[in-house]
């Protein structure tokens, strides 16, 4: 009988660390950006962090049910990438989606109410944590099936290009951001989507939030050439980049030209965004597959601490102001929870609403959530 291989977690930290911006480079980057912008990023990341901390508490208190995936550690990715596009550019992601929804501009109260399963949620409590949507902010969802969003991302890019070129007779001028996990790289749909994007010249950027693990499987155990996943873009003739996803300044610095390049050329791109999820895969994960040492090493690279320290070093932030922002975001999330609690659970009539646009049989047509005005349509 065969004996099993080593059960020890990898000695090497996964993913392999990317070259980090040095102190001078960081200072130069900070100096090149408007103060308000950087302040805004810091605040956004802190808002997401606070939102997630309270989400975890609410889950433990059984106010939130189902599967719930926490974004703590990855905040710089959503904030830095979305800062590099315009509000008209489509965004789509997987189930670890709270951070993207907030970074895209969703009011935290609609996001929280969705997880509380209330009618005031962005999807009227019908989608839950894994399925956030916000049409007004061009956020095309959280998607629960691994990889499912990748062909959709190609479709969103197809649509913007079609509208721009075929209907409006202009140059293609939009870029779609499609986020996926490193584990999603092994779904067939992702490869079909990349090939289509390359073949049809679709302006979509596949951003792999490479946190090194899919559930308990380290990337090296589940993915060939896991140390160099950009080769999986080369195979489809798609340009790629490796970015330090734990530093919002690096994310923006590298994403901005890439986005503009895709916009200009109407071509896809692929990003190996090196990051780390600081918490478990979902709310029930003892994290036995990785070492405490590895976790501690990544916690030193906490994107919020990194940005705030750099700002303080460059006289862009005071300790006092930092604490003040902390207070503000705590208040904002507290309000969101209060609002969620006050919102009612969806009534029985919602069961047969939104199944079809048309009213027929037991089906009662559709209506927009409160977030979008709540109109019957």
């Amino acid at each position, binding site marked *: *009988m*065969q004996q099993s291989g080593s059960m020890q977690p990898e000695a090497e930290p996964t993913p392999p660390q990317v070259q980090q911006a040095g102190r001078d480079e960081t200072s130069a980057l900070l100096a090149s950006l408007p103060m308000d912008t950087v302040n805004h990023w810091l605040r956004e990341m802190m808002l997401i962090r606070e939102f997630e901390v309270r989400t975890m508490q609410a889950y433990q208190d059984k106010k939130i049910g*189902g599967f719930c995936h926490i974004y703590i550690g990855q905040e710089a990715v959503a904030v830095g990438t979305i800062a590099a596009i315009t509000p008209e550019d489509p965004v789509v992601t997987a189930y670890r989606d709270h951070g993207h929804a907030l970074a895209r501009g969703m009011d935290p109260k609609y996001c929280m109410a969705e997880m509380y399963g209330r009618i005031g949620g962005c999807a009227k409590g019908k989608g839950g944590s894994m399925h956030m949507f916000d049409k007004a902010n061009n956020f095309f969802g959280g998607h629960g099936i*691994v990889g499912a969003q990748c062909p959709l991302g190609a479709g969103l890019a197809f649509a913007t290009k079609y509208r721009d070129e075929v209907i409006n007779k202009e140059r293609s001028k939009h870029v779609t951001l499609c986020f996926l996990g490193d584990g999603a790289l092994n779904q067939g749909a992702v490869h079909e989507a990349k090939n289509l994007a390359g073949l049809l010249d679709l302006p979509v950027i596949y951003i792999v939030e490479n946190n090194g693990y899919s559930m308990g499987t380290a990337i090296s155990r589940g993915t060939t050439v896991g140390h160099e996943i950009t080769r999986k873009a080369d195979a489809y003739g798609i340009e790629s980049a490796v970015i330090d996803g734990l530093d919002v300044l690096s994310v923006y610095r590298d994403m901005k030209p890439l986005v503009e390049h895709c916009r200009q050329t109407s071509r896809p791109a692929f990003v190996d965004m090196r990051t780390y999820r600081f918490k478990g895969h979902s709310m029930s994960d003892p994290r036995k597959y990785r070492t405490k040492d590895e976790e501690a090493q990544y916690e030193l690279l906490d994107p919020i601490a990194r940005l705030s320290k750099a700002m303080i070093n460059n006289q862009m932030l005071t300790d006092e102001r930092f604490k003040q922002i902390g207070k503000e975001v705590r208040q904002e999330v507290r309000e969101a929870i209060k609002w969620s609690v006050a919102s009612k659970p969806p009534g029985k009539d919602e*069961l047969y609403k939104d199944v079809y646009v048309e009213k027929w049989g037991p089906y009662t047509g559709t209506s927009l959530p409160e977030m979008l005005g709540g109109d019957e349509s």
Partner: protein
Amino acid sequence: MSRVIEFRDALCEAMTEEMVRDERVFLMGEEVAEYDGAYKVSRGMLEQFGSRRVIDTPISESGFSGLGIGAAMHGLRPIIEFMSWSFSLVAADPILNNAPKMLYMSGGQFGCPIVFRGNDGAGGQLGSTHSWCVESLYANVPGLKMAIPAFPSDAKGLLKTAIRDDDPVFFLESERLLALKGEVDEDPELLIPFGTANIPREGTDCTLVSFGRPVHFCLEAAEELAGQNISCEVIDGRSIRPLDVPTITRSVRKTNACVVVDQSWPFASIASEVAATVSEQCFDDLDHPVVRVNSDDVPAPYAFDLEQEMLPNARKICQAVRTATYSS
């Protein structure tokens, strides 16, 4: 000798015993080895059998399902675990287009002795992508067998039968039942043949037919109705394909009333199939048309109350029985 164990351990025992018995059997799926299974069903199996026989996969359902089918065509006996049957949808082509048709298309040359197993049905507020009840959808396909245990003992006996079966078996577990405890015999030859329904409760006024987790809702309803002097006979089908029609019709001839409870959607469902069969074979015995209880004909919602409203439950079953027995 029997002892009380959890449903998940009954499944683990079945796989372990069959792997000891037959070296052609192996287990493959996401997180089955080093993580002991996402739901701890394969706990300890990696240690016992090693990584050649208990194999972690990437998130590639289409790939590893197809791989299993190829291996089965070459004479191995794979057990392919889906973390959830909801994720089998991305493997629809291999599991529906290859496995069940291989024997036929090859004119009897290549059989496909493979077991696909995993959680089926609502797990509790998982939303519509993760709450699939695949039984009605998949049972439509000739060439496959489908088993769906409701009790630990059946879980073990049916899974052992599935692994020894020469045809592809879709084995539907429920995450909500994995911690359920029950008596399970230690006999390594505990085999429950497919197509043999069980009658966990006898009665005289109405036959309740169900499969998998809703069998427990039927038992709950039967208990409640007993207090109102309505005596229900509960039939646990245990396998859907083949379906034990004689046990069902025998019961209906006795009770003259039938309610079918099936957790999938009502349209073209297992419940429709059973209702049609009972209507055909027991038309003169029925005092009332067969009544069906299904999930509501809508995608599964996330919100707790809405999901409860959508799923079959004891209250809905009681109401259906009252209708079928003219007691409302």
